[in-house]
């Protein structure tokens, strides 16, 4: 009994290895779906899909089951205007940019920021907002009054965001005052970060000022906004996969139209509390 079962086990092990190798070799052959151009999709009656984040006030979020916010309202205008099948998918931030870069989505209509790393993989439509990053602290936390006091304190920030990527600038600012950057906790989305700020698990949260103003309005009396944590503002723009000129032109044409007819300014005032009159059409960030 023993010898034959041993031989069978040997056979099985080599079969298993063969199967593993075969499976691994198959992977490089797979690749993203052939990215179809906008014209091709329209001609073949295929839907054009944009993606939006599910919980990022005030740019896009869900209220009573309905998507609301600046980007969602702009999308509704786009959809009403489009002469083809334009659809929207709403997913968590984690897979949003990867979905655009792999061709699953034709564009992201979202509050994403523009930086050099992202410009390697995406082209951005003209910005819809510009903002400084600031920190948010608990109102009753008197130990934080300036950047100097952030030394050693725990910060909460969204994972995979430019807010996180630009933290080294804050680190320099803290070190200049003789302090040290504290622990960095990364969250999948900002609502969870704000919650942990409220219950004391983190000491401050870094986000664009527009986002912080929004949570101040949502939860009055709980938080307070501090000083800027970056030297220059970040721009909010909609990404398309790099090289997708047709989709980029489509988005830019739409944005120019709503700028011209005043709708953009109206929505900016409604959701962002401020209008951005002099945004450039193309930005080259130095971070």
């Amino acid at each position: 009994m023993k010898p034959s079962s041993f031989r069978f086990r040997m056979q099985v092990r080599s079969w298993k290895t063969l199967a593993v190798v075969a499976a691994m070799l198959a992977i490089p052959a797979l690749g993203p779906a052939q990215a179809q151009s906008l014209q091709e999709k329209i001609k073949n009656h295929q839907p054009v899909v944009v993606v939006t984040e599910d919980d990022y006030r005030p740019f896009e979020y869900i209220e009573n089951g309905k998507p609301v916010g600046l980007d969602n309202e702009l999308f509704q205008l786009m959809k009403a205007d489009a002469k083809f099948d334009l659809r929207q998918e709403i997913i968590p931030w984690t897979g949003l940019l990867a979905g655009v870069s792999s061709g699953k989505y034709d564009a992201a209509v979202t509050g994403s920021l523009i930086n050099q790393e992202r410009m390697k993989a995406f082209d951005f439509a003209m910005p819809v907002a510009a903002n400084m990053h600031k920190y948010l602290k608990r109102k009753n936390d008197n130990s934080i009054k300036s950047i100097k006091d952030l030394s050693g304190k725990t910060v909460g920030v969204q994972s995979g965001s430019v807010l996180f990527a630009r933290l080294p600038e804050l680190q320099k600012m803290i070190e200049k005052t003789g302090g040290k950057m504290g622990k960095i906790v990364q969250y999948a989305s900002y609502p969870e970060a704000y919650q942990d700020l409220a219950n004391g698990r983190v000491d401050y949260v870094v986000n664009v000022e527009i986002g912080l103003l929004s949570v101040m309005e949502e939860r009055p009396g709980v938080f307070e906004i501090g000083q800027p944590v970056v030297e220059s503002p970040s721009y909010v723009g909609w990404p398309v996969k790099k090289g997708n000129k047709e989709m980029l032109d489509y988005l830019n044409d739409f944005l120019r139209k709503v700028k011209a007819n005043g709708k953009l300014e109206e929505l900016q005032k409604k959701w962002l509390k401020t209008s951005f009159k002099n945004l450039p059409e193309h930005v080259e960030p130095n971070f």
Partner: protein
Amino acid sequence: MIRDFAVALAHYDAYLNGLWNTLWLSAATLVLASLAGAAVAALMLARNKAMRLAAAAFVDAMRCVPFLLFAYLVYYGLPALSLQLDSWACGLIALVIYHTAYMAEIVRGAWTNLSREQIEAGRAYGFAGFPLFRRIILPQLFFASVPVIGNQSIYILKDSAFLMIITVPELTFAASSVQSTYFVPFASFVIAMLLYWLVTLGIEAAVKRVELAAEVRRG
């Protein structure tokens, strides 16, 4: 796709860091939950009815609750009790309490299945008290439970991944972080999956080793 794997693997330090945290959490949970589980098992077999019922209720409750929910309850519940602990500590506490229940069940099962004859024979030969426990009872308990404990440690390993949701920087969190920064989701999560698989194969190999030793012992 090869390019994607190259990009992901260039950040191998992130994966190794995450893997280390995963292994550390799992090993610590295994040790602490085994000890606590043995204690709870003792309560389950105690003379006092109240202790028995309390222990049984704890074990039954933990086995009906999804681990992620329990982790959330610990994560948000402790601050409510004015206990300000970071996500690491909360994650470890959740893992230990949760798996203590399962370990208690395993230990209790091994205890009640002890061979009465061997123990009586041991007593007949003059073994009693601690030597009886150490030479006769404990080896039986150990060899009977190792396969089941090995299985449970794989469950502990997999449950540790849920902790990424409460921001514990373990392996899946690391994979998610790399892919959301460099846009390589398939490659990143496949790497994580393979790492979990390798650890599991290691655990299964270790369990087989112990089983072989048990066979040799039994003669």
